[in-house]
């Protein structure tokens, strides 16, 4: 059973209905890309997966968002545990008001991750990385280094770990956000147009990182850049005016769409 699955999900802001009756399974350990014209509800759909939608007032959700079989919109669902499972990258990165090092250590610290857990995590990570971190100080140092490496940022920041994270370039900040999200051991990564504020080179780095990470994480990316979608998508969800028009493996949706609106969108006739 896939661990993210939506059943008859409808979402409205007040009386403004944004998503209607969306049912889809998001495949595990693949990159799923959500595409569609501006305002069609991509961000809304993404934020329903970790209940960040709750920050908006007057939002009404009906239907089910099942994460590991649990309906997250059930009254007694554990929202904090859910959010911990779903790493999140926003359109514009926001470094927490602390150092680069603390940005990564923050999550594990707040969640009071035990020493053993951290060591365990480091061991798990070593299998996932190209380069093993240099063994040196405390566990937390190794953990921070591991995640910075995993997000492809280590080499650029290793000499200034204790400077404010806000001094990084936007592209670096986005990779920092990725490392920060990974450090609380999510199972999935949700990213809302993660490269739209970035220069092409930084954008490429993020894409590369996603492709690398999909071995171990389920990744859901919202994008309005069709070329990017073609480059990274394994699975595609096409939304149009709040309706789930088509979803399926990337080749199928891009090369042989079954709906006329999908065809028009992927060929660039509507945008």
């Amino acid at each position, binding site marked *: 059973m896939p661990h993210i699955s939506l059943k008859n999900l409808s979402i409205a802001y007040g009386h403004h209905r944004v998503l209607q009756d969306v049912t889809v399974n998001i495949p595990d350990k693949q990159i799923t890309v959500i595409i569609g014209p501006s305002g069609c509800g991509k961000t809304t759909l993404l934020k329903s997966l970790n209940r960040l939608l709750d*920050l908006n007032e007057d939002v009404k959700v009906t239907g089910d968002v099942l994460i590991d079989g649990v309906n997250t919109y059930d009254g007694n669902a554990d929202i904090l545990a859910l959010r911990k499972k779903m790493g999140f990258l*926003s359109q514009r990165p926001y470094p927490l008001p*602390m150092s680069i090092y603390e940005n990564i250590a*923050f999550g594990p610290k707040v969640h009071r991750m035990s020493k053993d857990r951290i060591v365990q995590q480091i061991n798990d990570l070593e299998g996932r990385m190209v380069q093993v971190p240099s063994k040196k100080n405390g566990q937390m140092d190794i953990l921070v280094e591991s995640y910075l490496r995993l997000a492809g940022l280590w080499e650029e920041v290793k000499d200034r770990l204790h400077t404010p994270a806000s001094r990084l370039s936007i592209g670096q900040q986005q990779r920092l956000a990725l490392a920060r999200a990974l450090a609380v051991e999510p199972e999935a990564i949700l990213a809302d147009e993660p490269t739209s504020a970035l220069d092409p080179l930084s954008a490429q780095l993020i894409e590369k990182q996603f492709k690398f990470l999909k071995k171990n994480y389920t990744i859901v990316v919202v994008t309005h850049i069709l070329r990017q979608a073609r480059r990274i998508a394994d699975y595609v969800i096409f939304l149009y005016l709040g309706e789930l028009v088509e979803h399926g493996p990337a080749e199928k949706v891009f090369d042989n769409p079954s709906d006329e609106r999908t065809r028009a969108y992927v060929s660039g006739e509507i945008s």
Partner: protein
Amino acid sequence: MDLRKFKDTFSTLSIRLSLVFVNTLAFVIAIILYIKAKPILVKVSLSHLLFSTSWHPIRGDFGFFPFIIGTLGVTAIAMILAVPVCLLSAIYLSEYAHKRFRAFVRLVVDILAGIPSVIYGLCGVIAIVPLVRFLGQAIGSPTTGYSLLAGGIILAIMVAPVIISVALEVFRTIPQAARENSLALGITTWEMIKHVILRSSLHGIIAAIVLGFARAFGETIAVLMVVGNVAKIPDSFFAPAYPLPALIANNYGEMMSIPLYDSALMFSALLLMLVVGGFSLAAHIILLRIERRGYA
């Protein structure tokens, strides 16, 4: 046509001129006060004026220490009472309250900030003075109620709108992305407030407190009505005090036949103005920096 350019130049110029005018005005007032205070400053040493406790104008003895203590006392009580409550209220309004409730409270706070201080003073006489009298009797220190504590309480009520509205403004300028990015890590709202919201807004909070402080420090009428006005260092919260603004308001123009009295009052006015002006300026510089730098 160059009409648009002309309008632009004209408006820029008039804005600059008004700014210059306002700033010059403050400067001119300070100069005038200084000139008027000069006679006492040449006669009596500054340290005597500031730290002597002996206040006998007829003998030419002007020790402002009891008044300075009175001012600092009511201000300190006001800040201790107001700051925690106001910051918590602002946090609640910014991070927990529904936006309609927030808008409503903003309106109420603005109205409260606009109420003339004499009305606060009246309410103080009607409600706070008897309350303090009752409190004093209850814990065994009989008092008329006209006291340091009453002054502090009334000031706390008066600075609350300032602190709440500035702090709320500061919290609301933190981008929503800060909340989304931190909550997405699975932390609680309180953890987010503590580690992200408060940390990002430290300077702004300081500015809010300093503005409140400046308001409390210079407030005159309301305090004068409830504080008792006795020129002695108060020996308890329930004893009367005599803050500087009250001294000036009560005496200026009345006992002008006493030599140097006029000059002494001018000196205390200058002192007040420098402290309040200095603090307000500091707060505004902090707030301006925040706006420029943003929160990233």
